[in-house]
Every structure is written in C-alpha cells, then in structure tokens.
C-alpha cells in the first residue's frame, strides 16, 4: 500500500464547523436519553409513534453510507449515465409502501425475524426466527465493520491519518447516543444528518457541475471526446450477451424487475431489514407507507445529482484507469473547489452520512440480539428495564466486534458484502412468495436460505475455480441462482405440510395480505373474523370518502398507486440528471414525475387515511398478542 498522502488540509474555520456539527449530532441523540430508556419498544422503535417524515429522513440517511458516493462515482465514471440503474435497487421503495410495508406494519412484528414467527407456524417458524436473528445480529456487525473500514480509507486518503483512527473515532462518537437513547437517538440524529447531508450533496454536486464547465460545457466536452453516449441512460451495447464488460438491455430489465417486483416481498434486499424497523416505528400504516416512499425517492433524487456531477468529473479526468482513484472523484471535487468554511461543512456531512449508517446498524443488530435471541429464547420473562439494559450491552458488544473485524479482517468484510448482494438472487422469489402465497411454508423458505448458501458458493466461487463456469455477467448470475435455488425450495414446499390453518387465519386477520390467499380468506370470512369484501361497491378511482372497512381490503387503487409510484421514481432518476445537464427530456421527465406523484397521492391517500384510522382501533389488541407470543404464552 502507498504511504498515506494528505489530499486536504482544513483551516480553522473548517474545524469550527466540523466540531459544531458533530457536537450537535451527538447532543441531538443524547437528549432523548430519558425517552429511550422507558421500554424495549422505545429503545428499538421510539414507541411506535413517529410521524412519516422522521422515519423517511432516516430511510434516506441509512441508504447513504460513507462508501455510497465512492460506489456511485465508480459506476457513473465507468458506465456513464446508464450506471444510474445499478443503485436503482432502492426503487423497491416505490412498490413496497402499497403492499409489503402495509402488511408488515399491520403484523406489529418488532423485527423481520419476529414476523417469520407470526406468518408461519410450528417448529419451522421457530427455526426461521432463530436463523434470521443469528444472521442479522452477525451481519449488522459485519456491515458496521465494512462501513467503518470505508471511513478509515476516506480519512487515510483525505488527511493521511492512520487507518485505525478513521475506523474507530467517528463510530465511537456515534455509539455515545445509540447507547444512551437507542432508536430515539438514532432517528432524531438521522433526521438532522439526513437534512445536512442532502443539502451538502446538492450543493457540492451543483458546484462541481459549475466548475467542470456548466451543463452545456460538460455536454460539449463529452462530444469532443466522442463520449456523448455517456449522457444517455438507455444506451446499451446490445440486447443481451455474456461479456461482463458490456451493458446489455437485459441488465436493465433484470435490475428493474429485481427492484420493482422486489417491493412485493420482505427481506429481498439487505436494506429491507433497517427499513422494517422504520416501518414499525411509524405511528400509523399511512405514516409507514409514506416514510418508505419518500425516503427511497430522496435516495433516487440524490443519485441523480451525483450522476450529473460525476459526468463533470469525467470531462476533467477522462482517462483515469484506476478505480480506486476515480471512485474518490466526487470527494475530490468537493474538497478541491469549495472555499474555506464550506469544506468544513462538507466534511461534517461526510461524518453525518457515516454516523447515520453506523447508528442504524448498531441499534438494529442489538434489536435482533435482544428481542429475538435474548427476550424470546433466553429470558422470556424479562421486564422492560432489563431488556433496555440488555439492549445497551448488545450495542456495546456489536461495537467492539465491528472494530475487531474492521481493523483485522478487511478481506472478510469485502467478501461478505459481496455475498449479501449475491444472496439477494437466490432468496429474491421466496421472499416474495412468503408474503403473497399462503401455501409457501416455513420449510420452503428456510430451505431456500440454506440452498442459497450452497448455490452461491458453487456459482461464484467453486465452479469458476474449477473452470466449469466462466465469469458470468450480473444478469446471468442473478437468474441462474434464482433457478438453481428454486429447484430446492419448490419440491420442499410441496412435500411438506402447509402451515396450520388456525395460525394462518390469525395472521390473515391481523396483516390482511393480498395475493394467493383465497383459502385462508374464505376460512376467515366463514369464521366471521373478516367481512367478505367482494360484496363492496366499486369505488371511483379518485374517491375522497372511504368506509374504513372497505379501505381495509385491497382494490385496484393499490395497484394503480404502485404503478404510478414506480413511474414517478423512474422519471425522477432520469429527469433530475437530464435537467442538470440542460437536456429537454430531463424537464419532460420531471413534469411526468410530478404528475405521477400527484395522481398517486390523490388515488391512494383517502384510502390510506381511512384504513389507518380503522387499524388504530385494533392495534393495541394485536400488539398484546405479539407480546404474548414472544413470551411463549399463546402458542397453539
């Protein structure tokens, strides 16, 4: 490794702003100490009473990690504007608010592992909960190690600090408010960090575009270089092919399908797990849905700003071959062009995006370790104060574990982050089926996880090492793994019994899933637990008044909202970047985005309001059931 060289030196004014912003972020978390210690639900879900805009900024802040600007800079520099589709996986947040978010919020599960226990029954459900709880506890520690290691690299690059300083310093600062106030501290600091980072990302990107010659200057320079295709987000090398260095139409189709259909499932992407926590912390079903929708959209918005400014960086340095060098392009623009004072705020924003990710994973890992492993398995009778204490101990253990991993085993964390993405392929469809299809049982889902372990090793490591398989492009890897894993879980599903009908009815009444749930719905109607919604009159598309019972059911309004929302996301992704380069199509896309967003809101909001009001009446009873189940009191 090269000896560290300092790229930037801050002046006194910069350090003043860095110090003030860090102090404010920590203070913002710590002052919620009294609220965080009240109960397990306060320490991990802020009492389930937050308005939508708080978890929304937290969703955005969590989607933005220290390595995100480097990753997106790398993809845009390499692929041009079409690289914008790689981070478009966040678009699962376009569909999820109108399906899986609503179902998950209604289940009242504190974690995804707990949801498995509510959705499925018997030994299989318990095994799934134990498996996911262990996986999530450990994976959150790995993500912490990975993000801290990225911060270490940034500090080495920018200031020439020793690696361990960057790895440990800011993460330790963050632990102060996560330990004291739990999720209250996380979400309040995230709100502030989200706003600061959004403002600074916008400012630095605009500044970078200006310095690179402005929108027309960038486009002209790209034309001179013979690289005009870089401004086209739909530029494909061919419809399909097997060369990993090319970008095919099938790459885009796979990415869009993976993201948008993935919104129907739970657990398809690693982002689902932190967002599940935000969904449950929202005060109503409506707030939960809007928090995911707005947070995801803000991330797409941010990506477009980055994309336009990275094209500016490209015209300044069109021939950098080392990815480790061009990945720092966006950081370089900020630290090079901003004047004194703003550089300090820029560095404070980098720290903010680091802290928001760290705080989330510290609290989330502790949630799984406390709620699912300790509370459910080790000490079901523990009182609220004891659970908060254990939550803090688990937070501390995760922090220490992440330091050990981040400092000593960088190759492991690098591999695991890759493995996490890879595994999205094998469990992508099972994660959807478990939500949409009543017959998909716990053994099928568990077997898909285990099979995925084997298959992903075979496809990306063992078979290429043996020379049996060549290195395949991403879209082929995705579909190959999806098919191979399905060869295991489909037979397992049909060779094992369905879940217990009483349990399924209980889950259906609480969560009201849509899809292939006919037999369970008919049984619930027969028992008089839900009304038969097929007899309800057909509501107009822009209906303003909804009967709460009607709003509780599924209708074409939900489908239309999800479709409009997806188009809104697509138009924003393309439109913002296009407009920043003064492209006419960019303006048209933005108009389309606003129109789709407005229409979506008009179609779904009255229904959401009525549904949320109706659900609030039953929420306390459902929550008591969930608590009893965690304490093993009402198992069949």
């Amino acid at each position, binding site marked *: 490794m090269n000896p560290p060289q300092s790229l930037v030196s801050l*002046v006194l*004014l910069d350090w003043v*702003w860095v110090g003030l912003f860090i102090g*404010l972020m920590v203070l*913002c978390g710590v002052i*919620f100490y009294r*609220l965080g210690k*009240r*109960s397990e*639900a306060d320490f991990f*879900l802020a*009492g*389930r009473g937050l308005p939508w805009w708080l978890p929304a900024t937290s969703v955005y802040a969590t989607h933005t990690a220290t390595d995100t600007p480097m990753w997106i800079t790398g993809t845009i520099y390499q692929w041009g504007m079409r690289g914008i589709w790689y981070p478009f996986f966040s678009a699962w947040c376009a569909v999820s608010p109108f399906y899986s978010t609503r179902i998950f919020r209604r289940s009242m599960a504190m974690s995804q592992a707990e949801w498995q226990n509510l959705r499925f029954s018997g030994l299989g459900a*318990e*095994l799934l909960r*134990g*498996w*996911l709880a*262990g*996986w999530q*506890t*450990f*994976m959150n520690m*790995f993500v912490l190690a990975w993000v801290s290691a990225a911060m270490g690299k940034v500090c080495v690059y920018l200031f020439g600090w020793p690696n361990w300083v960057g790895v440990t310093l800011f993460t330790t600062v963050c632990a102060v408010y996560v330990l004291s106030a739990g999720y*209250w501290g996380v979400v*309040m600091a995230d709100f502030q960090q989200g706003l*600061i980072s959004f*403002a600074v990302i916008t*400012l630095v990107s605009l500044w970078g575009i200006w310095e690179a010659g402005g929108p027309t200057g960038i486009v002209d320079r790209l034309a001179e270089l013979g690289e005009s295709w870089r401004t086209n987000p739909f530029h494909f090398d061919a419809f399909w092919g097997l060369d990993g260095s090319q970008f095919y139409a099938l790459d885009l189709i796979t990415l869009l399908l993976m993201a948008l259909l993935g919104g129907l499932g739970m657990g398809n992407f690693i982002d689902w797990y932190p967002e599940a926590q935000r969904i449950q912390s929202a*005060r109503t079903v409506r707030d939960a849905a809007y928090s995911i929708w707005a947070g995801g959209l803000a991330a797409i918005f941010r990506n477009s700003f980055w994309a336009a400014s990275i094209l500016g960086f490209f015209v*300044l*340095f069109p*021939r*950098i071959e080392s990815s480790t*060098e061009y990945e720092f392009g966006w950081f*370089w623009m900020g630290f*090079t*062009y901003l*004047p*004194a004072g703003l550089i300090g*705020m820029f560095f404070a924003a980098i720290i903010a995006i680091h802290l928001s990710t760290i705080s989330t994973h510290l609290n989330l890992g502790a949630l799984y370790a406390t709620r*699912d*492993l300790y509370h459910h*398995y080790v000490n079901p009778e523990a009182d609220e104060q004891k659970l908060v204490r254990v939550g803090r101990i688990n937070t501390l253990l995760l922090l220490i574990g992440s330091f050990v991993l981040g400092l000593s085993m960088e*190759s*492991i*964390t690098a*591999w695991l982050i890759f*493995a996490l993405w890879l595994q999205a392929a094998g469990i992508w469809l099972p994660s959807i089926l478990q939500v949409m299809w009543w017959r998909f049982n716990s053994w099928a889902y568990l077997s898909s996880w285990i099979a995925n372990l084997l298959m992903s*090793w075979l496809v990306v*490591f*063992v078979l290429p*090492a*043996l*020379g049996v398989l060549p*290195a395949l492009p991403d879209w082929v890897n995705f579909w190959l793994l999806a098919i191979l894993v399905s060869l295991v879980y489909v037979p397992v599903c049909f060779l094992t019994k369905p879940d217990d009908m009483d349990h399924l009815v209980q889950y259906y009444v609480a969560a009201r899933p849509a899809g292939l749930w006919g037999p369970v719905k008919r049984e619930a109607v027969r028992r008089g637990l839900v009304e038969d919604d097929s007899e309800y009159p057909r509501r107009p598309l822009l209906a303003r008044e909804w009967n709460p019972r009607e709003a509780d059911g599924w209708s074409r309004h939900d489908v239309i909202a999800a479709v409009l929302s997806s188009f809104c996301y697509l138009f924003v992704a393309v439109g913002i970047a296009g407009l920043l380069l003064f492209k006419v199509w960019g303006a048209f896309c933005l108009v389309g985005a606003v129109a789709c967003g407005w229409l979506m809101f008009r179609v779904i909001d009255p229904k959401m309001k009525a549904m949320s009001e109706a659900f609030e009446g039953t*929420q306390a009873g459902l*929550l008591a059931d969930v608590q009893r189940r965690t304490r*093993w009191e009402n*198992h069949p």
Partner: protein
Amino acid sequence: MIDEAMGKILGMAMAYGVSVLGLFLAYVNYRKRIVKAERVMTTTAWAVVAVAVLAVAGGVLVVSRLAGAAVETGVGPIELEQPEQVEIEVEAPAPPGSSLADAPPAESTRRQWSWIGIIVPATIFLVATVVTAALHRHFSAQPPGAGG
C-alpha cells in the same frame, strides 16, 4: 493478515455459524416450551447435527483446496499479479486527465475565507438546532409507550 481465499471461507463460516446457533436456540426452546419434551435433543436431531458438521467440514476442506489450487494455477477469478504490465504503465507518459495529480493545486481558494463559508453552514446549523429543540419538546410532552 488473512489471505483472500481463507477470508472468504472464515467469513462465511462465522456468519453461518452464528445463524446455526440461532437455529439451535430455536430448536431447544421449541422442544422445551411447546413439546414439553424431557429429552431436548432427540436421536434424529443429533444425527442431523452430525451430518451438518461433516458436510460443513467437508465443504470447507474442498473449497480451501480449490482456492489453493486456483491461486497456484491462476485458474478462476483469483487473479495473479502481472508485474510486466505495471512496468509498462509506469514508463509510458500519462496523457492529460489520467490522474488526479494532473489537477492544479487549489490551496489558494481553500485558504480564502468567504462569507459563503460562514453564512451557509451557520444557517444550516441554526435550523438544525432549532428543529432539534422543537422535536425534543414535542416528543417529551407525549405519554410513554404510545404503541409499545
């Protein structure tokens, strides 16, 4: 420092090891609390554990051998260093725009104080402070455990 192949194996082994610990906890609790069994681990359960341990140990052995073989032969995705190429790149004159080192120093800009470097951060800082105080006041006044 752990090499790449061993790092992959160790990382996955640790991740799945902790998940299996969760499985074990779930199984033991289910047997104790739902089945009310006197013997927590049945013969079948022990057999499953034994098969799983053997399978994992065998898998790790095979993969570590493969990884070693891949590194020795240069087969597969683990690429060996190519010093000749590096030397050629170092000797060739780099075209403009091929490195961040080509950029003119911006220290003069950076050292200058400007109003924008005070007003913009101060505005954001003040707004953030006021919002934080308002949020704290609002939520502290709410009753505990609204949904918890």
